[in-house]
């Protein structure tokens, strides 16, 4: 079971910036987190995989077969996103039956148990449900059909905190019973940091990083301490700076990758980052130059020289998509 996205580009307007820019990604069974800022291209990517949008170029293959206008492949892929189909008068059970017919099966026991857990009576008319409950119906259907690729575009939108937690449990249970390719896009990264196995970060239509979620602490290291001491260390070791924040002489510099403990200079504290903090630093606008420019106190002391380290960090490296994105955003 392999979903391969090859050199996928999607442009909505001729001459406009591409929503997806030469995306390459291979997904195996597992729960994948798709993270990106507003407008990064997450929904477009999921829409193209589900054949709701046509790519400008590139191809999506499920086990080697192009999914585009391919009914067999589309019967193995389901997408839940914000578009709410018009079915106000229909009963919840009728919606599940329709999904059962389309996808050739439905785990009724699971669907009913999930709906009940969320307080949705299976026989209720869809129109009588709240927005959050409608989302639950769609999610319960999507988790219960026998597809190989499950795409959930902001699945917890409109769900309260307790229901979000409950949903993650059902998602994990469903995956545990039937491992398949699941992609979850969400802005509430902290909540899914332990739920997802892989993390994919999309920025301005490009994949800037993809990694095992439990290895996030070694993707970057935050060095906190005296600015000039950190600067000297970063330069001497040729470390790649991702983010640089300063309060007077105290600097908090984020560099790519793990830094061996024995290398850390005295008086400097090093730590890893959680998934959400790493995401913010990789996709945020707090670039090296920007921070140096807004630091009125320390401009002369350390600003210019740290800027120098920053330039080194964003030196052209075609093999590194992140460096590429850094260059474009700075």
């Amino acid at each position: 079971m392999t979903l391969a996205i090859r050199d996928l580009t999607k442009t909505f307007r001729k001459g406009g910036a591409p929503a997806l820019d030469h995306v390459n990604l291979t997904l195996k069974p597992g729960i994948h987190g798709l993270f990106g800022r507003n407008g990064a291209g997450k929904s477009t990517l999921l829409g193209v995989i589900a054949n709701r949008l046509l790519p400008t170029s590139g191809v999506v293959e499920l086990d080697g077969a192009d999914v585009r206008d391919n009914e067999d492949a589309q019967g193995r892929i389901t997408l839940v996103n914000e578009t709410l189909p018009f079915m106000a008068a229909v009963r919840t059970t009728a919606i599940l039956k329709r999904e059962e017919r389309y996808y050739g099966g439905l785990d009724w026991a699971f669907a009913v148990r999930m709906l009940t857990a969320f307080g949705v009576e299976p026989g209720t008319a869809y129109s009588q449900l709240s927005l959050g409950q409608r989302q639950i119906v769609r999610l319960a259907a999507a988790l219960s059909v026998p597809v190989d690729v499950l795409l959930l575009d902001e699945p917890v939108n409109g769900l309260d905190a307790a229901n979000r937690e409950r949903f993650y449990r059902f998602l994990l249970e469903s995956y545990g019973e039937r491992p398949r390719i699941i992609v979850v896009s969400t802005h509430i990264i902290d909540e899914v940091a332990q739920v997802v196995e892989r993390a994919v970060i999309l920025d301005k239509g490009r994949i800037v990083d993809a990694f095992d979620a439990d290895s996030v602490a070694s993707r970057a290291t935050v060095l906190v301490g005296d600015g000039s001491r950190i600067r000297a260390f970063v330069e001497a070791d040729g470390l790649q700076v991702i983010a640089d924040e300063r309060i007077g002489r105290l600097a908090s510099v984020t560099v790519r990758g793990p830094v061996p403990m024995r290398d850390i200079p005295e008086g400097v504290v090093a730590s890893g980052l959680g998934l959400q903090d790493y995401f913010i630093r990789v996709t945020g606008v707090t670039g090296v130059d920007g921070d140096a420019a807004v630091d009125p106190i320390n401009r002369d002391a350390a600003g210019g020289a740290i800027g120098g380290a920053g330039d080194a960090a964003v030196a052209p490296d075609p093999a590194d998509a992140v460096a590429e994105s850094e260059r474009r955003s700075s």
Partner: protein
Amino acid sequence: MHFDDTSGEPLFRQVANQLNEAIIAGIYKEGEQVPSTTEISTAYRINPATVLKGMNLLVDRGLLEKRRGIGMFVAAGARRRAGDDRRDEFLSVEVARFVAEAKRLGIGADELKAIIERGYAS
């Protein structure tokens, strides 16, 4: 069990440590089955691959045994070995870190010794 994704400790290690503690505490007795990956995964909302990775650490250390098609069981002699492992870790890692921090703060060996002795006496 409690899991913290900001502690810097990889999650699969936290899973292994928590199971290790549960074995030491006798919550899971030797010869008994431990919860399945799916059970732990859904109860704590942790990806099953991460849970399995943590459990496999304990399999490698001989604390858990896989029984094909049934699940994971606490191995014979696991409680004592889990305690020994924890003791070794405390002595080699935590005490070393503790001493390094004391040095950094300019606390001498005698001063530290006195504090430790006071702690034992109370």
